[in-house]
């Protein structure tokens, strides 16, 4: 190394130290701390909330949730009609909308989107896989009535259909872009949303820029940068150090750091439920009394107040209160009552039973699963259940839990975030949803009454009637205790005080169009 290069390196490092620019993020550019690298920016191909947070700003669906609720309102479709039998939906499309790549939005584009996802013989079906296409598995046919009218035909009445269209899986992508990029579309997205894709550097950032032609008013900020910061602690540190303007999923322990003037803490309850699947097919939990005992033994209040620092509320049953119209207000959560738990265990003869407990290390909506699992283990230990924890990384965990707990474990952590009160119970509580039949009822709960209620609710297009059926279901399920109902998460986010007009949605989406930054 020559003296000159030495000098150059020296100067560079002095510069590096003296410059302070990094502490200040630029105006009008919002920097968002994401919890992970997105998998793809193709709405049909992804399943994670983390990815949805970007997608919702780049794409529009035919419909969307009204701000602050889970009610559906028009978006790319201005209007729609539902046939009396609940099987045919006809949408009138919005005029003059173009995709970011310049191509036109029209009925053909809508048909292309759904055919790509649902038809195995579609030329672009191989741009998948499309893991959530079953949201639209009821769709039999999509038909272009005229350039601005499109008609969906379902094979059976399906109440959650509109709600599913508002879900990211229903977001509309540019067919031209799919044709141009094929499998690489996920890295070269094009939609109609308020922001258009600009850059994706792996593990560094995804940048989207303002779409000046947006049909619903242009965005306040020039651009948004999504930074994947997997580690919650680093995310917190970045927020504190000023490297990001907005962070989601603030770890409970870090909340106290953001109480000062420099930050705004935002909270919003959402359709989330955190529960323990109990193996009702074999072992101690085959006995309802033992399942109830577990519900009594776990100090859920302590978990939500202490472990989660108040970022969640105690769950009463399988349906989160965020689905206000379908929620059964009369349900009271199982109280913390170790004595009662012991009594029930004694009654069932399950004292000192040895249980295997699957705990995950992270995962979508799982909050703080290891700490929660450990606290639960300690609570169950206290009433005389000998619980052995096995931890798995999230994907391995799903690989273990989804095929069913039989022969492996007695209990497992799980959390769902859904867009419709139908989804979770329909997929995870029916007898027809046992793992071997393709569902997610990994604990093998089975109650014909519940099965009936759920089928009926799904076929009905009358919300009041559906509400009644769901409330009935909740009461039965709570009594049967196929799960331990632990918590309903209140999603949180922190912004620096430079950020204005930010609010969280019950849908857990991040809508950033109207957010501005000083």
């Amino acid at each position, binding site marked *: 190394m020559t003296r000159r290069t030495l000098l150059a390196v020296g100067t560079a490092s002095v510069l590096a130290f003296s410059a302070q620019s990094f502490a200040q993020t630029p105006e009008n550019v919002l920097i968002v701390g994401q919890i992970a690298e997105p998998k793809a920016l193709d709405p049909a191909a992804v399943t994670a909330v983390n990815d949805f947070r970007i997608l919702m700003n780049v794409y529009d669906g035919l419909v969307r949730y009204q701000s602050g609720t889970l009610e559906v309102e028009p978006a790319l479709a201005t209007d729609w009609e539902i046939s009396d039998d609940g099987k045919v939906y006809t949408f009138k499309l919005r005029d003059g909308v173009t995709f970011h790549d310049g191509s036109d939005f029209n009925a053909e584009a809508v048909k292309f989107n759904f055919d790509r996802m649902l038809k195995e013989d579609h030329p672009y079906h191989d741009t998948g896989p499309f893991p959530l296409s079953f949201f639209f598995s009821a769709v039999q046919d999509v038909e272009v009535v005229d350039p601005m009218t499109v008609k969906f035909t379902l094979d059976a009445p399906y109440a959650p259909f509109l709600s599913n269209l508002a879900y990211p899986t229903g977001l509309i992508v540019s067919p031209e872009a799919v044709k141009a990029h094929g499998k690489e579309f996920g890295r070269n997205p094009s939609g109609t949303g308020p922001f258009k894709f600009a850059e994706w550097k792996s593990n560094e950032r995804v940048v989207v820029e303002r779409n000046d032609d947006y049909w619903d008013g242009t965005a306040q900020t020039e651009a948004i940068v999504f930074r994947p910061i997997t580690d919650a*602690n680093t995310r917190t540190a970045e927020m504190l150090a000023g490297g990001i303007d907005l962070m989601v999923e603030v770890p409970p322990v*870090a909340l106290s750091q953001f109480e000062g003037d420099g930050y705004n803490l935002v909270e919003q309850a959402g359709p989330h439920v955190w529960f323990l699947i109990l193996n009702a097919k074999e072992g101690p939990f085959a006995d309802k009394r033992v399942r109830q005992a577990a519900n009594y033994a776990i100090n859920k209040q302590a978990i939500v107040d*202490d472990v989660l620092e108040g970022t969640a509320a105690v769950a009463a049953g399988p349906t989160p209160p965020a689905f206000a119209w379908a929620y059964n207000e009369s349900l009271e959560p199982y109280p913390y009552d170790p004595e009662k738990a012991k009594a029930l265990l004694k009654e069932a003869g399950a004292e000192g039973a040895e249980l295997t407990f699957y705990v995950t*290390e992270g995962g979508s909506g799982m909050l703080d699963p*290891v700490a929660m699992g450990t606290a639960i*283990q*300690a609570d169950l230990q206290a009433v005389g259940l000998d619980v052995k*924890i096995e931890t*798995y990384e999230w994907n391995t965990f799903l690989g273990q839990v989804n095929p069913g707990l039989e022969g492996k474990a007695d209990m497992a952590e799980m959390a769902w975030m859904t867009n419709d009160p139908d989804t979770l119970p329909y997929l995870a509580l029916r007898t027809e949803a046992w793992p071997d039949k393709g569902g997610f009822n990994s604990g093998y709960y089975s109650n014909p009454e519940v099965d009936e209620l759920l089928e009926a609710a799904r076929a009905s297009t009358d919300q009041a009637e559906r509400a009644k059926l769901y409330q009935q279901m909740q009461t039965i399920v709570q009594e049967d205790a196929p799960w331990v109902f632990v918590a309903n998460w209140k999603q949180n986010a922190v912004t620096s005080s430079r950020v204005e007009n930010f609010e969280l949605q019950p849908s857990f989406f991040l809508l950033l169009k109207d957010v501005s930054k000083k």
Partner: protein
Amino acid sequence: MRQFFALLFRNRLAAAGAIVMAIVVVLALLTPVLPLADPDVTNTGDRFIRPFSDGHLLGTDHLGRDLLSRLLWGTRLSLAVGFAAALIAATIGSAIGIIAGYFGGRTDNIIMRGVDMLMAFPYILLALAIVAALGPGLFNALIAVAAVNVPFFARNIRGITVSIAHKEFVDAARLSGMGDMRIILSEVLPNVIPVIVIAMSTTIGWMILETAGLSFLGLGSQPPQADLGSMLGEARSALITNPHTSIVPGAMILVIVMAINLLGDGIRDALDPRLKSGALSRPKPATLVDKNRTEMPPGDPEALLSIRDLRTEFRIKDKIYKAVGGVDLSVRPGECLGIIGESGSGKSVTALSVMGLVSSPPGIITAGSVAFKGEELVGASYKTLRAYRGDRVAYIFQDPLATLHPLFRIGDQLTEAITSHHAIPKKEANQRAIELLRAVRIPNAESRAKSFPHELSGGMRQRVGIAMALANDPDVIIADEPTTALDVTVQAQILALLNDLRRERGLAIIFITHDFGVVAQLCDRVAVMYAGRIVEEGDSADILGNPVHPYTSRLMACVPELGGGKRELEAIPGLPPVVNNLPAGCAFAERCANRQPQCTNQEIELIGTGSRSVRCLFPEKSLVEDRELQ
């Protein structure tokens, strides 16, 4: 064993490490009986209590569990896993290494290729993949950590085994009728074990770090069980708000690993035989000179180089080796002085003391004077010494393969000798180097200047050594057994060359040897040394013709001379004394046939007249008699 512990505890840092480690281990062992809170009982209401609170000396973690209790239980587990992993890795790795190293050839090739593959695999990923395949859990993490460290041991131990397998005692064992398995177990293994122990003691710390790393990634112990790594991992989310939950296990890892490393270093040092003799200390640029020495007026002012009552000692631990015990010598311009003696007689140390080249530590000059042209060199500044070294007083050493720098071309080594004293242009120095090579009769000097020492034969190398000594036209050359390592035909050439050069250039030479024939042929005068002192000195022809000291005459008698035919040799009984424990009086007395009681109870002076002197009370012939005989 006792010696081992004595050595270990002499090293204060190692002792500190041992004590800390002992405390940690005792605490870990006692953990189950100590009055601690249950490490797994959660009390979320009391979470994140700060250290030094009532009931929770180190505070509590994110679930309100007592950190002190978790720390001790965690330490217990981490230590056990670290030790176990090190043991497993060492056992398997060493076995592989020994087999590969001992059998060599194809076996070695195949095994080492496999080891290469594993080493090329990023080790954390390998560990991760193993844990992923076996499932999480501390035991599986242990297996993974052990597995990824097997190549390290295999490689290390193989190297050692190769060198041991080629030792003569292995051949000897084979000739004793031992089979391969038995040789491995009884000859190789005992010599490898210290290395294994050293490698283990220095890697346990590393193993604990690695296990902690895996636990930190969530692949180690399963909750609620605590080990140090998982404690750190769990605490990470609260790093900013409650750093104490991270710092407590982090600091514990630091303390343990540091103590283990200190102890490991100590064990390594105590097991390394070279360290016992103090040999791994760096020699200073110039030999130490005892500040409290009695200074000596310089001797013979006529002489070019004059040594008076020079005493050089080696101080190793509590032993003092009096290598040179009061030597007087002088050499005049153009004279060749021989110093002859057996190994350990102090002849080389005397020579090296002149320019302060005795390794120090352990060497120290404790008394005497060395004067070059009247200037005192003992106690002179490094600057003065360096100015003389190689310029006025040059050395030629014994083994030219070891004494030439193996990685520099010989031309460069020669030019450096010149430019160290004379600021002349590089080109000129190169030219001069080639002239020097020619002067020592090296054929094709230009191309040879670009050779590396190993590319030359022994004789050629020694010519380079001589050329280097001649580089600055010195006044004195000190040649320390320059031909001992050479074959006899080559030796004859080198000696003839030296003789020519000295006559051509009028060099003064001090020539150190153990060979009377060489002395006779080359030297004008000779001094015979025994146990650090000169016992006889005089003209070489005189001494070789009429040795007077019993040692000189007996020594000459026991060297067979060519042309004598098959015969019985006259051996000197006994062994030369060890210079750390010299007897009183004459050091040779014990082996001397002429010994009288006086010999061992008084200091015996070097007596003599003019050119001939002897240190003996009962010489073979008196010097006076000797003169008369002539």
